């Protein structure tokens, strides 16, 4: 599973951070999403998918080699 985060689109809602703080963070400089892991292990698959669904600006997507 590979996550893509489009920082140009992110509105800093923090939904991703609330959902999976081990994978998503908000930058101290601009409040926008910062990935702590681009290819998180399978144990994060569920919460990462949830974060992608919750992201209000649709800034998050899952890359091709998702499994």
């Amino acid at each position, binding site marked *: 599973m590979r996550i893509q985060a489009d920082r140009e689109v992110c*509105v*800093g*809602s923090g939904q991703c*951070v*609330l959902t999976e703080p081990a994978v998503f963070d908000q930058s101290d400089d601009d*409040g926008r999403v910062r990935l702590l892991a681009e290819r998180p292990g399978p144990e994060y698959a569920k919460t990462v998918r949830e974060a992608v669904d919750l992201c*209000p*600006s649709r800034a998050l997507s899952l890359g091709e080699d998702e499994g």
Partner: protein
Amino acid sequence: MTDVSTSAPTRELPAFPMARGCPFDPPEQYSALRAERPIARVALPGDRTAWLVTRHDLLRQLLTDPRLSSDRTHPNLPTPVPSLQAQAQQDFAPIANALIGLDAPRHSTHRRMLITEFTVKRVQALRPRIQEIAEGCVADLLAGPRPADLVSALSLPVPSMVICELLGVPYADRDFFQSRTRTVVSFNASPEDRSAAIRALRGFLDELVTAKEREPSDDLLGRLILRNREAEVFTHELLVGLAALLLLAGHETTANMISLGTAGLLQNPQQLDQLRADPALVGQTVEELLRYFSIVDAIPRVALADIEIGGVTIHAGDGVALSVGGANRDGVAFGRADELDIQRGGRHHVAFGYGIHQCLGQNLARMELEIVFTTLFARVPGLRLAAPVAELPFKDDATIYGLYQLPVTW
């Protein structure tokens, strides 16, 4: 589904806003509409029409569609009161043009000036102070007479004090801004009274912002002024409008959630018992109360181009009211959607909206609500309503739903 409605006379359309049956539930008509016409043509006061969206998936799809504009000054924006339109173009303009009424890409430029102030981390740093404020209010409540009004003892003071300290607005002026806010969000206020309230709020914040421009203080407004000196995003007028938006949205919404949430839990004692037995459930309790009460029901938008969706064509220029109450009770998205169930989990409710305008203050609101419910139910174990629910003064005449008073005893 065919588009039968565009030519139908206004009087045959369902009227919007719709009346509630049970004060805890959204209008009953929503469920029938959701099943039959999830995007339905409705009649607004003043001979206007709009589309009403009551399905969760369609609401999320539309709120992420750039063809829908948030322009609060557009004449077709679906507002519950016709006079609001004209006012949005005049008295409201600086507030309406601040963030919430902007479309991309201007919206992103404005929002980026603020998001560092509301990140999950920044809000977590406020926890000890919010806890202290909540403890103080609950201690005063306990020391005062019984029954007491929870709205004036807890619901309004906590978020008002928090947003005042965050923005750098004197809390001593609370009666002034709370009463003006009540007028601004009321359908029943006369246009003259509403204009006067808006002008008073703007005058008050104009002075405050001017002082901070001279001498930037270490608070959100001071930091914003400093940041703006480099970025040059906001005029003075827009800074005042933004301050008004943050002050208004920062206290009135959370206050209503505290009142309704408390009433909702007291009316569902098994739910409250579960929360008391396991205080770690408070986070998902707050999410469920947000979903259940949906205090900001209709999010207004206007179409900039034709949109084909759900079997209808929304034409360019049409107003669209996106019903949060409708979407949050959608049985496809939430099992037994009309039940309050704090075990539900999940955060896909749309109480904070969806899309680029999703609530900037949502993490602050969550934290305030968690702290207030935890503190209140722990410190006042015998808390109960001092009047039947049917007799409570619900805000049926306001753009943000809630309670004017909540008599409680213990």
